[in-house]
């Protein structure tokens, strides 16, 4: 019986997580602050907060330059790298948004 309850719980959790994963998609947009800083703002299509979501910045060759996380306002600010770069909003498998530096304007 205990095993059955556990199985049911796991199934319910899976369903719940599944629903969560499918129902929302990640969004992230970045802008150039004009003062040498880049600010990215993230969120989800269902309105949930992106606070704590991992952010990293890579150079043109994919090398990680820095890593951080969205703050409580779902924002992440970093110093604009010299040369090509991309910002990655990483909310897990299937929930990544990659923004090219050249698309980040004021």
């Amino acid at each position, binding site marked *: 019986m205990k095993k059955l309850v556990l199985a049911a719980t796991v199934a319910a959790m899976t369903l719940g997580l599944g629903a969560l994963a499918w129902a929302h*998609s990640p*969004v*992230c*947009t970045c*802008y150039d602050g004009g003062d040498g800083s880049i*600010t990215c*703002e*993230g*969120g*989800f*299509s*269902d*309105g949930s907060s992106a606070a704590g979501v991992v952010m990293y910045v890579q150079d043109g060759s994919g090398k990680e330059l820095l890593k951080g996380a969205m703050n409580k*306002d779902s*924002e992440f600010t970093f110093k604009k790298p010299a040369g090509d770069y991309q910002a990655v909003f990483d909310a897990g498998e299937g929930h990544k948004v990659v923004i090219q530096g050249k698309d980040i304007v004021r």
Partner: protein
Amino acid sequence: MKKGLTILSLALATLVLGAGAAPAHFQMIYTPETALEKGKEVDLKLVFTHPFEAGHTMDMGQPEEFFVVHKGEKKDLLGTLRSIEWTSLTNKGKAFETSYKVRGIGDWVFVLVPAPYYEDNEKAYIQQITKLVVNTSGAPTDWEADLGLPAEIVPLDKPYALWTGNVFRGVVKSAGKPVPNAEVEVEYLNHIPLMAKNMFDKAAKVKAPQDSFVTQAIKADANGVFTFGIPRAGWWGFAAMGVGPKDKHEDKPNSQDAVIWVQAVDMK
């Protein structure tokens, strides 16, 4: 014969008057696109008109308030308004324009509290408190907020995320309280506003078979909720009539209405 002519003239006069009286006044806040991929400078036109017919455009006075709400924060934009002249199909009227740079993600709710407009035909004032919601990136933040305006339509469906054929629902509120059985007028923006020329396009998109289709009058239910199926892509305006508490202005009746605009797109 003379009698026949008189009757004919009367009938014609009635028709003309009937047609003239039927379309509703609608305060517009217009921008071409409400569902934006990412932030940009959003151009806005504030025009008080009859949108289905692009007819008589009223002279707007200096608005009492114009602001935007984003992530719960209100920002005053009254000082950014510039006076313009808007050309309808029949006249020119005083209107306003501005632009606002939306940056980041979420919803921006633009709110206009216009000066009461004196409608001589009705010997009464009309004040249409109007909302327009713009979104970037598809992450919602503020669209469903009840801003506690004197007269307000609080949407139950995202005004910028409607397919043609979806329903749009809203709660009619008076100072935050639902208005049972509120009267709501609905009009289609039948002539595209030409942003650079400050005028309506002369070409009409649809033809109404009869006046009841120009301004559709519907009712909210006992909870102040109305539902409208959207039959065509484009802009639809909803105006809940006389729901606000301020029913007098300068010793004359004042109809404090709540207006919201929604934009529907075709599935293709």
